[in-house]
């Protein structure tokens, strides 16, 4: 026979003013299972909790109901009180008589009191069906996987590794560095990107706790938090990294020329190449698509000139596996392709370039030795028009959101242009200047004053060609007049967009992504680095556009989360998970289909007692189950139940009033 204790809280005046608490206590005492009922001013206070502890011991109670505020508020507090009294904490039920009664029925004390009684009856009834539950302990593999080797991935990997936790860093391209390695100087301080990034890249390569796996992709993730198993495809590089010294003889002699991705295709690289001089690892790979030895079986020069014999044309893709406990996703962003802007003649006019192309041109190690030139005739441009929000804030042709960084990098570009071409003049077509950030507005002001750049408020309407000039027409809304700028070159501040492979990656990892393709955080404010899947975290632009300082902060936050996760040898997990009654399970596996986490697998059990014949039933993986109950509701045989929300508990609630 159940012995229930009921504790009704006044919550100062919050409950007592609108609910007749003593009457509620009297009413619940009439329920036959209730052996103890009392009231107190603040149940959550120390004396209040003391009352619960004492009553449990004195009255040999088997379950507890606290009628107070929302369980979302103090359920944990009261569970602890039960534990302290030696009782299983999950024998607690909270009747929410504050948020659900006293606060919302302030004009009708009688009704509020009656409702509070009903809520107590329901909680009592439910608590009678409560079972002892125990937190689930899951062992942890203390190794983290970082996907993506841009500044976000580099920072996260370094921070985790510095805490002496092994890190596997997987990068798709032949070198880490990401987009930041392509930048010239960075706003608002005009630090040289290479100067601050390359030391970190070298640190990654030499860190004893980091295993760098370049030129590779994650192809499968199995398991659950603390116990993931990842499969990684190492793409064939056709170069033996163990023996290669990175001397460069191969790519100097390679006869095949291919547009250079690192320089946005402005110049050419070879078919065997290192992406850029400071690449980490500084070992070349062969671009199988263009290498004539691999495509046509003709050439083989690189193998001839390599005195280490590191070239191996027969190399195959390789699949490797690693056991890991947590994942940091840092796949960065793509530059949005401005092709839909037909009114600007994108694709027709060579002298319209994107901001990243401009960045490469003005970069000291860039294809034009740091001087911007017109792609059409190689002349140095004098009048340069920068157009902001190309693709951003444009739901018609591009993306709805603000890309956040374009205002600042365009400001930077006007300075760089001014530095590199002294007699140039910059025109910026803008809609707003969004310079929210430390030192950002000051940077914009200084740039405007120092460079004398002409700012025109308006979206450009059309660009057309007149002679060898580009005529840029738009409204200057401040003047209220249409203006035309005769430009030598136009730079489009193209939007930041989600990596186009993000949806595939998200499906592979079992996390969600938004309509743009950015990976979704668990909570936009309070859990911005976690995903809804335990043990998977997000760093950098893969979650949303952000600048370098923000990216680095988020990466470090991810590292802190990973370190926290790995603080103990095991992880504690809520016991509210599904359980399967094998006897009733008919093995239809519909639950497998509806489980959003892949937490249900199949298991073969004997068909009867002692039988050798097997039948298939469902099996819950407690570590993965998040306790949603989808499987419970669709199980026709009622073979599944969800601890804490079992059918008897809910039925008791329904029929108790």
């Amino acid at each position: 026979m159940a012995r229930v204790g009921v504790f009704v809280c006044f919550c100062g005046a919050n409950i007592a003013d609108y609910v007749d608490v003593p009457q509620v206590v009297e009413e619940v005492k009439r329920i036959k299972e209730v052996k103890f009922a009392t009231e107190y001013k603040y149940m959550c206070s120390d004396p209040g909790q003391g009352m619960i502890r004492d009553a449990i011991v004195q009255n040999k109670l088997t379950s507890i109901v606290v009628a107070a505020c929302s369980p979302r508020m103090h359920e944990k507090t009261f569970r602890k009180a039960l534990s302290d009294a030696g009782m299983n904490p999950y024998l607690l039920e909270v009747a929410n008589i504050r948020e659900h009664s006293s606060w919302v029925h302030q004009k009708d004390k009688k009704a509020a009191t009656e409702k509070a009684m009903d809520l107590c009856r329901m909680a009592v009834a439910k608590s009678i069906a409560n079972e002892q539950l125990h937190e689930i302990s899951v062992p942890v593999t203390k190794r983290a996987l970082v996907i993506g080797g841009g500044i976000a991935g580099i920072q996260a990997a370094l921070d985790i590794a510095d805490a002496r936790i092994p890190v596997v860093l997987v990068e798709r391209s032949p070198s880490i560095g990401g987009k930041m390695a392509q930048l010239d100087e960075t706003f608002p301080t005009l630090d040289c990107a290479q100067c601050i990034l390359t030391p970190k890249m070298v640190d990654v390569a030499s860190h004893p706790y980091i295993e760098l796996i370049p030129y590779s992709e994650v192809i499968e993730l199995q398991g659950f938090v603390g116990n993931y198993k990842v499969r990684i495809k190492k793409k064939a590089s056709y170069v033996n990294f163990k023996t290669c010294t990175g001397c460069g003889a191969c790519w100097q002699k390679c006869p095949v020329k291919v547009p250079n991705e690192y320089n946005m295709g402005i110049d050419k690289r070879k078919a065997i190449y290192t992406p850029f001089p400071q690449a980490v690892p500084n070992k070349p790979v062969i671009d199988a698509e263009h290498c004539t030895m691999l495509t046509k079986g003709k050439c083989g020069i690189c193998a001839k000139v390599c005195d280490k014999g590191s070239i191996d044309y027969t190399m195959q893709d390789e699949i490797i596996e690693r056991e890991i406990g947590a994942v940091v996703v840092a796949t960065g962003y793509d530059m949005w392709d401005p092709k839909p802007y037909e009114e600007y003649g994108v694709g027709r006019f060579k002298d319209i370039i994107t901001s990243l192309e401009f960045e490469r041109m003005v970069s000291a190690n860039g294809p034009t030795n740091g001087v911007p030139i017109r792609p059409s005739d190689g002349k140095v441009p004098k009048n340069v028009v920068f157009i902001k929000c190309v693709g951003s804030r444009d739901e018609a042709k591009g993306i709805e959101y603000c890309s956040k960084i374009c205002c600042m990098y365009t400001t930077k570009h006007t300075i760089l242009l001014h530095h590199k071409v002294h007699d140039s003049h910059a025109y910026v077509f803008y809609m707003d200047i969004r310079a929210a950030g430390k030192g950002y507005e000051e940077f914009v002001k200084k740039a405007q004053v120092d460079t004398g750049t002409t700012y025109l408020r308006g979206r450009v309407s059309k660009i057309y060609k007149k002679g060898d000039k580009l005529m840029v027409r738009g409204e200057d809304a401040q003047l209220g007049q249409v203006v035309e700028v005769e430009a030598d070159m136009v730079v489009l501040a193209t939007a930041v967009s989600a990596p186009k492979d993000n949806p595939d990656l998200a499906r592979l990892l079992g996390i969600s992504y938004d309509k743009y393709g950015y990976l979704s955080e668990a909570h936009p404010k309070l859990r911005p680095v976690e995903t809804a899947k335990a043990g998977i975290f997000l760093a950098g632009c893969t979650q949303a556009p952000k600048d370098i300082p923000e990216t680095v902060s988020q990466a470090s936050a991810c590292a802190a989360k990973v370190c926290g996760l790995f603080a103990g040898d095991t992880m504690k997990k809520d016991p509210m998970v599904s359980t399967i009654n094998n006897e009733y399970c008919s093995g239809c596996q519909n639950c497998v289909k509806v489980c959003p986490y892949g937490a249900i697998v199949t298991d073969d059990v004997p068909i009867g007692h002692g039988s050798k014949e097997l039948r298939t039933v469902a099996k819950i993986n407690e570590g993965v189950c998040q306790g949603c109950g989808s499987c419970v509701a669709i199980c026709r045989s009622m073979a599944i139940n969800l601890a804490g929300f079992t059918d008897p508990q809910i039925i008791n609630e329904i029929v108790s009033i």
Partner: protein
Amino acid sequence: MKKLTYFPGCSAHGTSEEFDSTLKLVLKTLDVELEDIPDWNCCGATSAHVMTENLAYALPMRNLVLAEKLENTTMGIACASCYQRMKVTKVHMDENPELAQRINTTVVEEGTYKGTVDVKSMLQYFYEDIGVETIRGKVTKSLAGLKVACYYGCLLTRPKNITKFDSPEYPVSMDQICEALGATATEFDYKTECCGASFSISNTEVVLNLSGQILAMAKESGAHAIVVACPLCQSNLDMRQPDIEKQQGVKYDIPVFYITQLMALAFGNPVDQLKFPKHIVPVEGALANIGKIDPVPQKVKKPIKAVEAESEVE
């Protein structure tokens, strides 16, 4: 032989008679038979939608309803203005059956609107239903040497969600057809800028300015001639050209062809059927670039049609 329902539009019997007649020559070569909509009426462009909403739908709807009585599923329209009004009406009616029902009450005598006939501009019909390659195959007199600026105007490709044809900013269908005829299409950035359209009569100043810019850009692109598929564009660019030249103090001397005139020419039709003398700006200079063709007649062969007495003036 293909069949096509044909809506000529008022100007086919007026200012753009040469468009209409050369279109018929071209379709003869392409083995397409035209079926005029019996008893068609003016589509209302460009005034109906300016002044009232319902009439702007009702006028085209009557034609659509009449067209549905014919067997063909496609209606071809020569005039770009008519095409746009008809297409807008069709799209809006198909999207909003309630509105269709309401507008239908005004022409209920003609029948019920069903939405079974698709509306295409002749350019679209050439490009999508005939195909550039078929057109290339019919060419007997290549136009090689002639550089043309293809001018589409506002209405053939815009608004995009209505026309669903080619690009609203830099269309290429007419360029491709011209290239198929052997001509060279220049890179012309004013393909879809407005010529001033209906302001031709009521607000001439605007037309002179806008059409003037188009002529200037066409000249800039190196074109010998402009090619259009819209009577309004043609009259603004051709008929107003002397005025524009006078106003700007520039001599353009750039003839404005209908695409069908060039097609008919390339298909080997005798020059005297192409109504070149109707042009205000002489075409000889431009056509000289394609080498020797039959001499362009200097005079209109037939006298002007007798003018019917019309004394009544309100």
